């Protein structure tokens, strides 16, 4: 068996973990977007949290809608 080296060999992930890894991605998108958009950096944390919640709940709602269509569309 080959020894695992960080940044060289890929990690072993499950599909369940993949969904959780969406959270840091949303956070990073929110931080960069709000950093260039807001006037006052003191409000950055609050704005990022709101944007992150929008993204996460938006994606969740989209997932539910697609699942409903997939399950119940004639």
């Amino acid at each position: 068996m080959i020894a695992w080296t960080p940044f060289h060999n890929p990690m072993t992930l499950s599909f369940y973990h993949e969904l959780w890894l969406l959270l840091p991605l949303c956070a990073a998108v929110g931080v960069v977007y709000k950093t260039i958009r807001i006037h006052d950096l003191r409000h950055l944390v609050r704005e990022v949290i709101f944007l992150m919640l929008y993204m996460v709940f938006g994606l969740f709602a989209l997932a539910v809608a697609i699942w409903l269509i997939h399950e119940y569309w004639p």
Partner: protein
Amino acid sequence: MPKQQKTSTPAPLIALVLAYLVPGAGHVYLGRRKRGIIIFVTITALFWSGVAVGGVMTVDSVRERWWFIAEMLTGVHGLVGWHRQRKVYENVLSGQAYDLRRQDDQDLLDAKLHEEGVALVAPAETVARAYAGIAGLLNLMCIFDALMLAIMGRTGEPPPPKPAAAVPKGART
């Protein structure tokens, strides 16, 4: 109080090149130091998190062209990732001639990458490429912002927004 100066004229080309090469450097050049540092830390962390998940084949110039273009937008990070990927291909192929447009050669290469333990497969592939690629796309947004600010000649932190004009009591609208 931070003030936005319009007197100095930053060079748009320098802002563009700096923002591309080092994420956030364009904003630092324009006097938005804190924003530049936040952008640098976030984009760097996102890109290298992707590489940590996906390994050296996250940046793949041969078979993932669209993701590769996005990853290259992270500047030095993408270039380092590309260099590391090229080294792996050189080692794996070790001077043999392959035509990666042919399915047989692609299968051979896949087998060799699996032997080396660097082949990137789902779900790690999805996460790694999304992280590294989106880091590049976020930097594209920052490059565009730095370029526009430089073209408009804006340096330093933006001034606070003006409060809405007070309507005198009893005034008819």
